[in-house]
């Protein structure tokens, strides 16, 4: 697959091809799911597999090494990955989102972010525990503490929510933040959603994103790239980044339930669970629920893309 990663061949990559690559990873993710939970973050091997499969680059701007697809393809991939491992799918959805988000920043910030490699990774932190902003020449001096920053252990950069008027997001390189290992959770155990701390780091003006403008779809990304999702207000669709892997996880649970029921002989009675009508109902109802969730998401995304194309 590495051979496919030359930039020239990317235009041939379709959403279908990306979903196929994600499907090929599902058995591997299942196998590593326990290890991922024990590590409490994504195994390096899985991160590398995502890089190799170009998952990180799905919606990355083409001029920055992206494969030329948009966020709707990210969600199709996340649906697939979710069948294998929830935490991995969570990051399989977030990493490409973050590389899409970088496109919202000023050109100067993007140049810095992608200076070393088109495979640069980042995480976001939205939940601000403390935050101190001091004016500094050409930017701000930032200190703060954020929690729930999924995948932060693998991040070269962090996008940190900065309260204020207007609210903003600061793009901060690895050398300027620390990670606190706090992620001991009952679910998404492997997402590595640790805390981030910044101690008095200088953030130049060009690395601060005005989130009010981003929320309304007025960003550099719209000017520079103009693809459908850069035209849409962020808040209209950002939550699908969380929903898509969850729908995939539900699909995986339905599949696991089906497998379990096929093999199960019930306790003392010796009856086959696969023959119990109640189990048929549970299976039918749960798979219909997941199908409905997937269809709702796809139909909403289609509507959004139509609006973006129509320039509404």
């Amino acid at each position, binding site marked *: 697959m590495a051979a496919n990663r030359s930039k020239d061949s990317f235009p041939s990559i379709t959403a279908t091809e990306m979903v196929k690559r994600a499907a090929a990873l599902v058995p591997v993710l299942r196998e590593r799911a326990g290890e991922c939970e024990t590590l409490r973050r994504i195994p390096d091997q899985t991160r590398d597999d995502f890089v190799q499969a170009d998952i990180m680059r799905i919606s990355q701007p083409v001029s920055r090494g992206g494969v030329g697809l948009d966020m709707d393809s990210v969600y199709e991939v996340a649906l697939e990955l979710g069948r294998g491992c929830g935490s991995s799918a969570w990051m399989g959805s977030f990493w490409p989102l973050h590389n899409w988000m970088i496109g919202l920043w000023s050109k100067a910030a993007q140049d810095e972010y992608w200076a070393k490699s088109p495979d640069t990774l980042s995480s976001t932190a939205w939940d601000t525990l403390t935050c101190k902003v001091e004016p500094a020449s050409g930017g701000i001096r930032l200190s703060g503490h954020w929690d*729930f920053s999924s995948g932060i252990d693998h991040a070269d950069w962090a996008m940190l929510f900065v309260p204020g008027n207007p609210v903003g997001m600061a793009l901060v390189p690895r050398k300027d933040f620390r990670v606190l290992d706090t992620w001991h*959770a009952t679910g998404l155990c492997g997402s590595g959603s640790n805390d981030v701390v910044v101690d008095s780091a200088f953030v130049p003006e060009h690395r601060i994103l005005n989130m009010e403008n981003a929320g309304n779809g007025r960003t550099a990304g719209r000017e520079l790239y103009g693809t459908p999702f850069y035209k849409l207000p962020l808040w209209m669709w950002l939550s699908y980044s969380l929903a898509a892997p969850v729908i995939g996880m539900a699909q995986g649970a339905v599949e696991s339930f089906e497998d379990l029921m096929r093999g199960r002989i019930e*306790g003392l*009675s010796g009856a086959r669970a696969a023959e119990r009508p109640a189990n048929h109902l549970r299976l039918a109802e749960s798979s219909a629920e997941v199908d409905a969730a997937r269809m709702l998401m796809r139909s909403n995304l289609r509507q959004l893309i139509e609006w973006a194309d129509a320039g509404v």
Partner: protein
Amino acid sequence: MNISSISSRAASPDASDWLDEAEVAKLTPAMLVERAREIRDLAASFAQEAERMRRPADAVISAMRRAGIFYHFVPARYGGREFGLQTFIDIVTTVAEGCASSAWVMSFYMQHNLLLSQFPLQAQEEIFSKYPYVLAPVTTAPPGKAVPVDGGYRLSGYWKYTSGVVHANWLMLAAFVERNNVPAEMRLFMLPVEQARVIDKWYVDGLAATGSQDVAVDNLIVPEHLSMEFEKIRSGVGHGKEMQQSHLFSLAVDVLLNVSSSSPAIGAARACVGHFRKRLLERSPIGADGKPDIRPSSMARLAEATLAAETAELLLREAADRAEAAARARQTLTAEQRLRIRSHIVYAVKHAKKAVQIVSDAAGTSAHSLDNPIQRAVRDVVMISSHTVYDWDIAMDLLGRVLTDTVSENMLLHHSAGQVG
């Protein structure tokens, strides 16, 4: 291995923390409930560590022993107290407020002393003369194999989910007796815990601290008197009522087992709702009237979760009362009557699960941190609900069949047998 060598290998009693006669005589229900509160707080302080160890904390089991909890159901003729089911529920739900895993193990330890009284007198005399109480897990699934031999049975099998095995001194294992190479009736066999191999496969997401490991026995000779027909134990018509005065020894054992296994869920749900209430009070901004300004939707959730937890407890207590009333009247309940009572306990557990799920839906991400008692209660209650007797589909199918008079005795047997342990 012959029978006499077995009896000489009996578990060596650890007498260091047994209560003396005067101390046992002074125990009252209120005193045990008071001590249960102390055990609750101790168990809560060990809850996360015990989950990491995947077994109950030694200090917590030790505190239960020293508190005299395990004399509760021991026959008075062997020095026990014969306290009733409502006190039992008080004690177990209270400890479950701090740690459902600890309460789960304690509940079965307590109640299996009552089960032992259904065994032949010789077994009771032999065991209770050396031990003031037993810590004896019961496990039935999958049933083992017992072949009749001179003076007893040759027992083999591999049993799963032996809750309490970590701190046990005895074990009760179910097996089908093979006659002419065909499995016939099911019996329960008692053996010192040292005679079984323990296999630790307890890696789970709920009741994680119970240490409910697997056990195996290969061609072990168990004397006749240390075994008992399972069906007679289950319906409470073993040797208990022949020899003991109290109505407790006429109780339908399958109902009793439901009380044992549901009480930890009820206590955990009660505590979970309490933690949620505290969280709302502490985390909401203070309004203009100086009171916490709690979101209306959170208020509604708190109210609904509280009602669900209270309903669960009422259902359980009422079911226990019905079983005790029948036992007092020396009435032997039919399998169907017992199922009707047990269905109320199944419904109680459903309400406990509803209570914790309402809380879980509203308590936010930080409630899922491993040191937060809310998430532990949610996992523990969901785990208890997964127990075969609380499987909603199976339970409703069975009750439906009882209501339409289309149930078979075999179905009832399988269902109530599945819950032991």
